[in-house]
């Protein structure tokens, strides 16, 4: 992939209490990029974690170099404009420490193939899937996705997977337009992208349950998802 070497990729990692996952994710990313020959930077955005995530981030910065790891506690909005990569990959969902190597390269390959503005990973199509999910969780996931498809008709099969590759200008434009916070933000990005006429490609991904840390999904999450969905329904 000689042509791929010229493009630089920025990876956004928002973290909260991810002290144990962070080194693994960074290691996997660094290895993937080294193998594919792309220049990269990993931007770790820590929300003031009490478990020392920031300290781990700083250690990683020493190991990999300051041009490769940037750690800070800025709001994610400012960082988009400062990142120097041409493509920005976002990883907002820490429930996955996925097959990064294969997933990332397939995201990148897809982008080049179709010259897409956004490439989104989907758990629901092709040979995408999950591991370690019980029936209840799968049911909630499929039910929520069905509701989303009916209400929003978004043109993408997985809105909450949050494993995406954006062109930088596309991401900037979308950040300007999006107003939601949290979970719903990712859904809004895709909905707005479609409204603006951006092309969205999809790639199947495997979502393996997190090994360390606690999954932030419960009754509260479901309620806020529904609220967010209805808000998007009424405003977009």
């Amino acid at each position, binding site marked *: 992939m000689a042509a791929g070497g010229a493009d630089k990729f920025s990876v956004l990692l928002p973290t909260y209490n991810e002290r*144990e996952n962070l*080194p*693994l994710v960074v*290691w*996997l990313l660094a290895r993937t990029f080294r193998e594919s020959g792309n220049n990269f930077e990993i931007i770790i955005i820590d929300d003031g974690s009490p478990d020392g995530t920031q300290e*781990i981030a700083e*250690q*990683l910065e020493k*190991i990999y170099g300051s041009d490769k790891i940037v750690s800070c506690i800025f709001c994610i909005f400012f960082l988009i404009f400062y990142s120097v990569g041409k493509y920005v990959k976002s990883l907002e969902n820490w429930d996955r*420490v*996925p*097959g990064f*190597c294969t997933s990332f390269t*397939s995201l990148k390959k*897809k982008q080049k193939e*179709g010259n897409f503005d956004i490439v989104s990973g989907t758990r*629901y*199509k*092709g*040979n*995408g*899937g*999950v*591991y*370690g*999910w019980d*029936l209840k969780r*799968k*049911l909630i*996931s*499929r*039910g929520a*996705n*069905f509701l989303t498809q*009916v*209400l*929003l*008709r978004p*043109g*993408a*099969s997985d809105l909450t997977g949050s494993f995406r590759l954006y062109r930088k200008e596309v991401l900037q434009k979308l950040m300007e337009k999006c107003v939601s916070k949290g979970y719903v933000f990712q859904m809004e990005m895709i909905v707005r992208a*479609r*409204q*603006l*006429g951006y*092309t*969205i*490609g*999809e*790639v*199947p991904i*495997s*979502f*393996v349950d997190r*090994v360390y840390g606690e999954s932030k999904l419960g009754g509260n999450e479901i309620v806020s998802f529904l609220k967010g969905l209805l808000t*998007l*329904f*009424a*405003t*977009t």
Partner: protein
Amino acid sequence: PVGAGGVGAGRGSVRLSRPLSPQAAMTKLGQWLCGLALLGSAWAALALAPPGLQLPAPYRQALLPLPVYLLVAFGCYSLATVGYRLATFNDCEEAATELQEHISAARADLRRRGLRF
């Protein structure tokens, strides 16, 4: 409506694209309300018409409970669809084992490079 392209070769990836829309779209809620208003008024006009303009009796009898039938049909469709998708939700065993390997490799390598966990 989205114009979906063909299925990509090999791993079953799907391509979606949409041309640029010329004007600002109505919100989804707005679209639903418009659609419901249209269908609702058509139904009301036909099913609840004053005696002078009524359709023949059999048609009216079929038309009157139509909204409820459609609702129930949609409910059945939803259950069937979600059930089918639930049943065909892939489980990725290989990804999980691959992940475990990555984790041990990562920990060993990082420890060597001086990371204090």
